[in-house]
């Protein structure tokens, strides 16, 4: 399947099934509605085959270039069929399962994620482990031919909806830092797991605390080898900082269009709009190049931190422009459309915090790309 053929076919199919695919809510919808909408869209696109292109056949895919699935994400976002931040989790978690899970496990599980039957979450951060991932303490110990996990995760997106979790655990000593970490694939309905959503300032409680109290995890749910968890994390992060962002670039472009349409005449400063337009365009240009590098077999690494900084900069600049152009809609209006602008403005404040803070990205750029050496 070539990209042009895929694009034409998918666009035609999305047009033909527009009613069936459309979300049942106005504005952004509540979180559970968004999650249900994504599952629905995934199921429909999987059954029609579109969702399967760009994934290897051993996990239920049809093969073909990763650009195909990038275009799918773009098309679904541009048509406002899915919330891109939530939908792109698939793009973050599935590649790592394919690389690190035992082939039999990946073959069973990945199709469930792709077809919308299951939701997964990513258990990385902990109360004492934000930017310094190597210091995590959620412990897994050997027991009964498997693992028992005790500890706490936080900022786990969508854990309240998740069937599985890609979990980083401490299996060595704390002093072993990044060497003593092991990744596990955990069933979220296992006894001993408690999920508590965290109230978030943008009104969408997608982040959670997750507590593990002596949770049994079978040996065959180990991702990679014992002690290889850091490699798993380092494999995920470039995806989180690059390919998953293509969809977010399409979202920013869409919201920029909608801002221009929604703002009262004269409310948008031309110079500020010109700058935001360039920031969004440059980010999308960078992201496009990254997609092509991945599709041609390139390894993604530290340079994806540049993609992430560019995205965060463009996103915050866009919503600063929204705040300047429509301050009253953000401040006092309460209809679903305005509530969505308000929520997205507030969420954009986190763009320099989540997925590796702006400071961490700049540390990576300084050390790995500029060769400035260690900072201590």
């Amino acid at each position, binding site marked *: 399947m070539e*990209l042009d053929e895929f694009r034409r076919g998918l666009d035609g199919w999305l047009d033909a099934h527009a009613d069936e695919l459309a979300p049942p809510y106005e504005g952004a919808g509540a979180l559970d509605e968004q999650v249900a909408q994504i599952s629905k869209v995934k199921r429909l696109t999987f059954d029609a085959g579109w969702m399967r292109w760009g994934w290897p056949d051993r996990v239920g895919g049809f093969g073909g270039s990763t650009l195909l699935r990038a275009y799918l994400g773009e098309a679904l976002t541009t048509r406002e069929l899915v919330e891109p931040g939530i939908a792109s989790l698939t793009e973050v978690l599935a590649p790592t399962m394919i690389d690190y899970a035992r082939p039999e496990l990946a073959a069973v599980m990945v199709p469930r994620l792709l077809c919308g039957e299951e939701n997964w979450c990513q258990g990385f951060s902990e109360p004492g482990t934000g930017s310094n991932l190597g210091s995590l303490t959620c412990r897994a110990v050997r027991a009964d031919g498997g693992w028992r996990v005790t500890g706490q995760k936080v900022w786990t997106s969508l854990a309240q909806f998740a069937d599985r979790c890609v979990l980083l655990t401490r299996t060595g000593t704390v002093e072993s830092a990044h060497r003593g970490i092991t990744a596990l694939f955990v069933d979220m309905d296992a006894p001993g797991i408690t999920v508590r959503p965290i109230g978030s300032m943008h009104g969408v409680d997608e982040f959670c605390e997750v507590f593990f109290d002596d949770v049994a995890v079978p040996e065959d749910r180990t991702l990679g080898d014992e002690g290889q968890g850091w490699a798993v994390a380092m494999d995920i992060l470039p995806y989180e900082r690059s390919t998953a962002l293509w969809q977010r670039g399409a979202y920013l472009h869409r919201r920029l269009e909608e801002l221009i349409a929604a703002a009262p005449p004269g409310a948008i400063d031309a110079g500020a*709009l010109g700058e935001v337009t360039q920031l969004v365009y440059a*980010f999308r240009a960078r992201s496009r190049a990254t997609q092509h590098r991945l599709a041609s077999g390139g390894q993604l690494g530290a340079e994806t931190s540049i993609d992430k900084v560019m995205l965060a900069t463009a996103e915050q600049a866009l919503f600063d422009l929204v705040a300047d152009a429509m301050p009253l809609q953000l401040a006092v209006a309460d209809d679903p459309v305005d509530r969505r602008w308000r929520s997205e403005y507030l969420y954009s404040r986190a763009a320099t915090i989540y997925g590796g803070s702006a400071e961490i990205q700049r540390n990576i750029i300084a050390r790995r*790309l500029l060769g*400035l*050496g260690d900072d201590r």
Partner: protein
Amino acid sequence: MMDADERELFAAGVRAAMERHAGSDVDAALAELGWTDALEVDPRSAVSTLFELQGRARVASRALDDVVLRALGAAVDAGVVLPALGASDPPGTRGPDGVTVRGVASGAGAARTALLVATADHEVHVIATADLEVRPVGGLDPSLGLVEVRGVAAPAQADAGGWTGAVAAGRLALGHEIVGAARSMLELARDHALQRVQFGRPIAMFQAVRHRLAETLVSIEAADAALAAAWDDASPTTALMAKATSGRAARLATRHCQQVLAGIGFTTEHPFQGYLRRVFVLDQLLGSSRGLTAELGRSVLAAGAPPPLLPL
């Protein structure tokens, strides 16, 4: 199209020409290298390579004239009058007495017997250089060798059209030159940060310094990405955005690198100040980043939509 080996060979030749020669010798060396042939065969590789290296080496040449002439499809041996510094409108205004000219040109271009001048209707006129007043610009960066061109003259002939495309081609070339200069500034600041020891360690170990340099690299790569997309897309709007993005990147690079270089970067003993001068003036050629950004904003408002990104 040049293949990878040919591109590398071309880059090595340009690098050598830039390093060994100064002033008009550069143009002779580039001519010997066959730069205008490369421009015909593979404009993207030729322009991006030559102008980035020109920016890095802070050399002045007549290559921008060649780029604009080619985009105009002009078969004459002439210089090109660009809009006055800071302006982006065509440099000529048609009136009863002929064409009123107010613009700038390269020194090498003005040494030609004829100059091409575009007017607001986007017609391009051939005017005898002798009929116009030409004087060095001087100012912040005399080594760029720009001259101011003014006067009123009757054009010898007019060729229709092509000015919009020529401006776009020139903006891409200048964008690459600005990016090259910004990369040189970043290298100077990086080397200094690794060598300069204070409080018993290289200042590169201080996060305040590291983050300035990281931010500089991000903005340079953003400009580079915009330039690459503009080559793929080949529309005047993307070229405008790429030039403006490059200019802003250079402004940021100037601020951060100056701060990291601190005292030594303020002296004429250090090459940094030459780059500061160069990018400031290059930003004013064919529309400043500030002016172009506002122009873009107005056109986006008028169109009701931002320019689309070319497909994946």
